[in-house]
């Protein structure tokens, strides 16, 4: 895989003495959707949060190894710059409750103290909301608080907020687990659009979702990356017996 945008080399993560990610080696190609699945506590979310250095925000959490974004090791970069290049969307929609829809979209610029001319801000807001298919729904209420939107709309607003920073990679931590089925399918449809411009890594505990939305799937078990392959290949003909057991529902 020469076109890998993100590559981890012997990545290890810990909570205190608890070894959560064990020697994870993975190469993620550009402009693909990668699903990361596995049973609870397998280290999938920790790995995801390791990619943009969010893992270390938790007291006692440490990490070792390398993660290359293009050829730069994010473990050596300042976390702030890492997070500007790698956006994140969380399990529950978390728009800033005190900000309007408009301000939520450009919150990243505001937080970082980047001053933009009004026209440029308007462009970013419209562009980002269009990307997440929210523009038509909210263009007349941009000054309303983001918290007035429905759960699914809030989650798309949060994706727009991440997209507005023009990152290279977007991380999703179980992005639809707090959403109803209709909102879930809207968000899932977005992934196909978003991968044209970004590389998407989606943690999910929902196997059907992994099968539906991803080009490749990674299966984590007890802190190890057991298998990483073409999604179709993995769901029809898994190489590892643990993957097979998981997919066939022997454990979850």
């Amino acid at each position: 895989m020469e076109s890998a945008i993100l590559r981890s080399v012997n990545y290890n993560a810990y909570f205190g003495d608890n070894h959560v990610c064990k020697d994870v080696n993975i190469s993620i190609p550009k402009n693909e959707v990668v699903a990361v699945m596995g049973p609870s506590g397998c280290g999938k979310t920790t790995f995801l949060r390791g990619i943009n250095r969010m893992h270390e925000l938790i007291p006692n959490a440490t990490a070792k190894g390398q993660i290359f974004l293009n050829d730069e090791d994010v473990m050596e970069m300042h976390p702030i710059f890492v997070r500007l290049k790698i956006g994140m969307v969380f399990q529950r929609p978390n728009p800033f409750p005190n900000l309007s829809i408009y301000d939520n979209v450009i919150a990243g610029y505001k937080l970082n103290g980047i001053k933009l001319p009004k026209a440029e801000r308007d462009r970013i807001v419209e562009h980002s909301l269009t990307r997440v298919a929210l523009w038509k729904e909210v263009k007349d209420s941009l000054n309303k608080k983001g918290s007035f939107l429905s759960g699914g709309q809030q989650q798309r607003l949060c994706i727009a907020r991440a997209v507005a920073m023009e990152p290279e990679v977007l991380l999703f931590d179980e992005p639809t687990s707090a959403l109803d089925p209709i909102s879930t399918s809207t968000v899932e449809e977005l992934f196909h659009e978003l991968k044209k411009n970004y590389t998407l890594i989606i943690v999910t505990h929902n196997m059907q979702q992994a099968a539906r939305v991803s080009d490749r799937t990674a299966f984590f078990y007890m802190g190890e990356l057991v298998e990483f392959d073409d999604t179709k290949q993995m769901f029809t003909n898994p190489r590892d017996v643990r993957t097979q057991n998981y997919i066939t529902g022997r454990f979850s």
Partner: protein
Amino acid sequence: METPSGNKGNRLKRSQRHIKFESFFRRLLSVVGLSMIVLVIGIMITLVVQSIPSLKASGAGYLWGKTWDPVADVYGAYPFLLGTLLTSFLALLISIPFSFGVAVVLGEYYPKGWLPDLLKNTVELIAAVPSVIYGFWGLAVLVPMVRTIEVKLGYEPIGMGIFSSSLILAVMVIPYAATLGRSLIQMVPSMLKEAAYSLGATRWEVVKSVIFPYTRSGLFAGVLLSLGRALGETMAVTMVIGNTSLIPKNIFSPGNTMASVIANEFTEADHPVYLSALIELGLVLFLVTVVINMAGKKLISGFTNE
């Protein structure tokens, strides 16, 4: 084994007793609650009634009168009103950076560990120290320090005065805003903070753009608590303010607050109008705190509705 019917009868008796107790308990709670209202109204009435001789003697001029001269039976509360507001707001101004600083350090930066625990307990202890002790400390340490500052700045080196009182009040009120602020900052949902971090925000940017807006009304309520404490504090202020009835010329001038005048002169009040004038001072202090509290509540609800 008991018969089902006997069992049922027992249960019925028991629950009837509970129902009776329930209504008794409800009445008891109502009485306790109402007694608070009665108490405050009672204090209010006492103050008003006892102030009547002074109200008759000085009228509305009492509030704006610039002279307080018990020997000549002239009572004007303006110097003390000014003294109270000046010391309290100056104290607030000095204390806010410290109380917010402590709140942010303990609430966000270092919520756990022995040093933060020590800091937390120490700050809480500040509120528990009797105010006479602050008065002593003020006389022994603060007043000489302020005197040195006054010499450097070219003011009369008195030491005791508005500024010394404000300093001591500032120390005394820090815990109120700090403790409330800390617990509120800890309650900010971590998913909001993470949202900001994931967008590349620094710790300070998270504090400024997520934590402060989210806790704004609560932080303000803490400041209001501090102010209430500062307005009414008596002993420590009486000891370091210099006790003069003149209008303070600047923040280093000696003066008096409403509370300190009452504490100082109550035992000397040898005729009815003098005594009544002091009680009216208490009434004014009471009203000032009520007005400031109500205005503050109005502001807080304004924040929350936004």
